[in-house]
């Protein structure tokens, strides 16, 4: 009998726990959205920032510092990809949507027009090759020929006699979209192998003979060789002054103008605290230092 009571109590406990957990979940959500609308000015309340895994490490670190300075605030940072970020902020499920691409490229025009863009930093990208191919400079036309499959062996470019192996990111990747639009001038890539994460791409290129791919500059670690494009090195300086063209903005979108805590946090992201230390440490380029600007169509103008 005693054992029966115990088992019964356990079962009731489990059911209660389930009810409490689900109840809490929905309760918290309501609270969050209410606070997000009500709070204004004062540094308290909670917001969420969802999206781009490329931008996630920076936003996470910045949120950590911001919450240390403002203990009453709660900033929840989640990854999930640029598409998730854009659709979440557009539907109002998240306060801030992080993305590596312009909203206009992913969302319908009427949805994109409701979003306000905050460009927090810039990230450069380079074509990278396995060090054994002994090529470190290509012209843009040669790069296009490599990725469209016209050039198939590195000896055609004066390198080693190795077959070229393309390593792409999936076509949904922001890095790939940027690389294709700017470095390849929109040319359709030949089908190579695809890998999802930049870390895996780097590992594969460093181990596969004749491999070529592309990476954000923050992923370069010496195991792969970045290619110069028309003789110009992919460095921070060359991107800032507009000589090296392959780079993209990291966007943080809000639905309508940012208000309350979201505005405070975005201001903090653009402040010297973040731009001069975190952004540089994590391998991004501060948007405040850029001497040029680029719009959705890809037109570059001096700032």
């Amino acid at each position, binding site marked *: 009998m005693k054992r*029966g*009571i115990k088992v*019964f109590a356990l*079962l*009731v406990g489990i*059911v209660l726990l389930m009810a409490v957990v689900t109840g809490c979940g929905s309760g918290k959500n309501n609270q969050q959205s209410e606070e997000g609308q009500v709070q204004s000015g004062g540094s308290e309340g909670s917001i969420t920032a969802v999206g781009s*895994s490329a931008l996630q490490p920076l936003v996470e670190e910045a949120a950590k510092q911001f919450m240390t300075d403002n203990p009453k605030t709660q900033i929840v940072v989640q*990854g*999930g*990809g*640029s*598409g*998730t970020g*854009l*659709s979440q902020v*557009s*539907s109002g499920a998240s306060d801030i949507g992080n993305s590596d691409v312009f909203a206009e490229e*992913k*969302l319908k025009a009427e949805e994109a027009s409701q979003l306000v863009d905050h460009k927090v930093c810039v990230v450069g990208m380079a074509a990278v090759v396995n060090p054994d191919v002994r090529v470190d400079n290509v012209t843009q036309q040669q790069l296009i020929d490599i990725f469209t499959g016209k050039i198939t062996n590195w000896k055609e470019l004066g390198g080693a006699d190795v077959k070229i*192996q393309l390593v792409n990111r*999936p*076509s*949904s*990747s*922001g890095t790939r979209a940027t690389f294709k639009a700017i470095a390849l001038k929109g040319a359709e890539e030949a*089908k*190579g*192998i*695809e*890998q*999802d994460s930049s870390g*895996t791409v780097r*590992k*594969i290129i460093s*181990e*596969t003979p004749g491999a070529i791919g592309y990476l954000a500059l923050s992923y370069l670690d010496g195991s792969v060789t970045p290619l110069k494009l028309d003789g110009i090195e992919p460095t921070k300086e060359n991107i800032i002054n507009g000589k090296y063209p392959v780079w993209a903005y990291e966007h943080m979108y809000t639905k309508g103008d940012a208000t309350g805590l979201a505005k405070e946090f975005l201001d903090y992201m653009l402040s010297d605290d973040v731009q001069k230390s975190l952004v540089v440490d994590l391998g991004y380029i501060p948007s405040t230092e850029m001497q040029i600007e680029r719009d959705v169509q890809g037109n570059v103008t001096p700032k």
Partner: protein
Amino acid sequence: MKKRLFYDKAGHGVTMLCAAFVIILTISIIYYIGSKGLSTFFSNEVSLWEFLFSDQWRPDRSPGEGGPQVGSLAFIIGSISVTLLSVAISAPLGVIVAVFIVEIAPGWGQRLLQPAVELLAGIPSVVYGYIGLSLLVPVIRSLFGGGGFSMMAGFLVLSIMILPTIISVSTDTLRAQPVEWKHASYALGATRWQTIRMAIIPAARSGLITAVVLGMARAFGEALAVQMVIGNTREIPTSILSPIMTLTSAITMDMGATVQGSIWNSALWSMGLLLLLMSLFFIMIVRCVVRRGAV
């Protein structure tokens, strides 16, 4: 007496609640995946024929450039081929190991081999993928040429991953066979090999088929380890060494960067629905086999 009645009723209620919860969960998941997956055909107006039998995957193109096309034939072929090849390796191997554990070396077979198999099942799939990426892919590249990322790497990794499923279900089946049959076979003067081949394995047939089908279902749904070693090329494979893409890897690669409601996102849900239907199909096979075996 009254107290007992109360506990009886309450216990009944709690178990009913839990059972209902599971049923509701299953139905709502199927409904969710179904409604999301079918929206490709109803809201985005892609024909079922194009989705299943075209290999043109260009969801990012605008209508002006001949886009968006969401033919997933290349992924379906990738999934099916890698599953069948891995089962072709694992099914005989697994059944033989199970026979060895149960019939030939019951002593140390059970003490040593069974825990080893269970350990194999406990290794997370990302670890299998990482081993495949770091060891198997370079070996294939140097032995057979090509890039190394290939269907071959995929089914070798998978065949090891589904081995524990096949072995453990097979051993359970073999152990459940009535020992009298074995004794009867020996009494007729049959050798051990003849007993195993003519009496035990035929008697356990339906259980062994179940084991293989369960292994197949696992192979079909495995995403991560496969994705890391097959190279992921959106093309119909031409040889065992060509890189391929499976339904699961197509979903994991694209899901984060697509926007909900877009045709691209819906097409990924349709692939999820396809995987669900396939696993329902596998479960149905198992049920039929088990029922027929019982007669």
